[in-house]
């Protein structure tokens, strides 16, 4: 899932600025699961903004609403009326949600309430960790299901650097060394031989380096009318 974190109230206040009518828009999918921008968080942020603006002597009207998925037009249609009535939409969706609102409602001013962090998973209650960098050409089959692109601090493809120590990455003892994980997993699966071949330079064209990406599935597109 996409993992995000709320911006500070200070920054949110600045982003909202002098707007009188505010709509806090939560999202019911990834950011709900990571407790950053679901209906609960949207209600709390709305209350905080109301309180803060009142204290500042500039009481704002702040409503909140949460859609199932901000990243799909059809769910956004449900809030079209509310969006049309406010001066600013504070989206608690991920960066995709914010952009979906901007794209779908050309007349709406939308600002982000979250910092979108990464694609990952919860490793324990209250802890999320990155797992995939969407490189566009998955090599997990060569690395025992541990991603060196997203999880090795240097995205190395041919084994650990000299900084690996006691299972940790050189950048921080809180970060696992991806190559230690790969090594351990391949050892336990008796498949170490896959590490002996030299992996050639990666073609980063499939990654963000190739420019913004797009997938077109002709088989799924609605037939164009002749």
């Amino acid at each position, binding site marked *: 899932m996409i993992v995000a974190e709320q911006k500070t109230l200070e920054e949110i206040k600045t982003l909202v600025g002098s707007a009188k009518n505010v709509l806090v828009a939560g999202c019911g999918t990834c950011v709900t699961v990571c407790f950053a921008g679901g209906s609960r968080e949207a209600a709390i942020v709305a209350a905080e903004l109301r309180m803060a603006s009142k204290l500042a002597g500039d009481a704002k009207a702040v409503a909140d609403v949460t859609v199932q998925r901000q990243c799909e037009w059809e769910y956004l249609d449900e809030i079209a009326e509310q969006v049309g009535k406010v001066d600013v939409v504070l989206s608690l969706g991920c960066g995709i949600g914010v952009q979906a609102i901007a794209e779908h409602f050309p007349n709406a001013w939308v600002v982000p309430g979250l910092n979108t962090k990464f694609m990952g998973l919860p490793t324990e209650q209250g802890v999320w960790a990155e797992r995939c960098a969407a490189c566009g050409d998955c090599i997990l089959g060569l690395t025992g299901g541990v991603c060196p692109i997203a999880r090795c601090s240097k995205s190395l493809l041919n084994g*650990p650097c*000299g*900084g*690996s120590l006691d299972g940790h990455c050189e950048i921080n003892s809180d970060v696992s060394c991806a190559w230690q994980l790969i090594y351990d997993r391949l050892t336990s699966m008796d498949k170490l031989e896959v590490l*002996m071949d030299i992996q050639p330079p990666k073609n980063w064209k499939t990654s963000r380096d190739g420019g913004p990406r797009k997938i077109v599935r002709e088989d799924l597109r609605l037939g164009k009318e002749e």
Partner: protein
Amino acid sequence: MTNTNGYLSGSNLERVLKNGHFAVTAELGPPQNADRSVIIKKSALLKGYCDGVNLTDNQTAIVRMSSIGAGAILVQEGLEPIIQMVCRDRNRLAMQSDLLGAYALGIRNLLCLTGDHQSFGNHPGAKNVFDIDSAQMVQMVSEMRDKRIFQCGEEMKGQEPRFFVGAAESPFAHPVDFRPYRLGKKVKAGASFIQTQIVFDIPAFKKFMEKVRELGIHKQTYILPGVSPLKSPTMAKYMRDNVPGILIPDEIIKRMEAAGAIWAGKSKDELTPEDKKARSKAWQAEGIKICIETIQQLREVEGVSGVHIMAIEWEEAVKPIVEGAGLYPRPVVPAPEPQADKN
């Protein structure tokens, strides 16, 4: 095309190694400014005492004069540079173009490294590159030389860069069991020489070399273990506790402490500046002694072709170490006769 008479590059380091001499390389850290006199001063301390000088590339992710720039100055000064290049700061385009330039400036040895993460240095907010890794860099530059192609596969017209290509290995970094294999990968990729992380623990290094020999890697490359003179017991403990892949046996720490024993137990204020100077001298002398003994022990290990002396910000130490280890004067192996172009 340059005819290198059977040599890959014809560099001094390659000639010394290929002719069976025990090689000595040293290290020079370029300054954090644009002052060429720093390079000249430091290189004067190394001239004649080693077969090649490593020039670090933004070591520990701190901006310094480029290894290529410093290397070009060394060429002018009549020393043999071994430029280091890390994967952190350049993509494959920048690497190849810089290496064409480095060769044109007379640089003939290259050490391919991963590079410390930028979070250690003075620009922690920088974007890193890591387009290719160090094994891939070794392969790329070897193919530029041997196949005369760029990384993309396009043919190179005209003079190809003919480097003596090396790589690094940290024998005691984790996972330890994988290290000899990783070394093997780099050698398979084309590394003609290997410089290692600093070695103090001889038994541990011997164990590493046993595996290296079992894999036959020592016959396909020249291995130069790293050594470093300790400056003080504090430095020794710092290295032991903070630098991944450096093992320092207690016995060495004890020797360093014993060297300063007559000043031990005194508080900072009780020591006069003269005391401190004398203590520092005693520590340094012991550090150099340990380094010499380490070299002598490493020399006995089958598969070791030389040593790489890392006297970081202490280039003065190289001369007594090389002399003390009986490695002075350095061998002179004449350069191959330059021959007329074949094409």
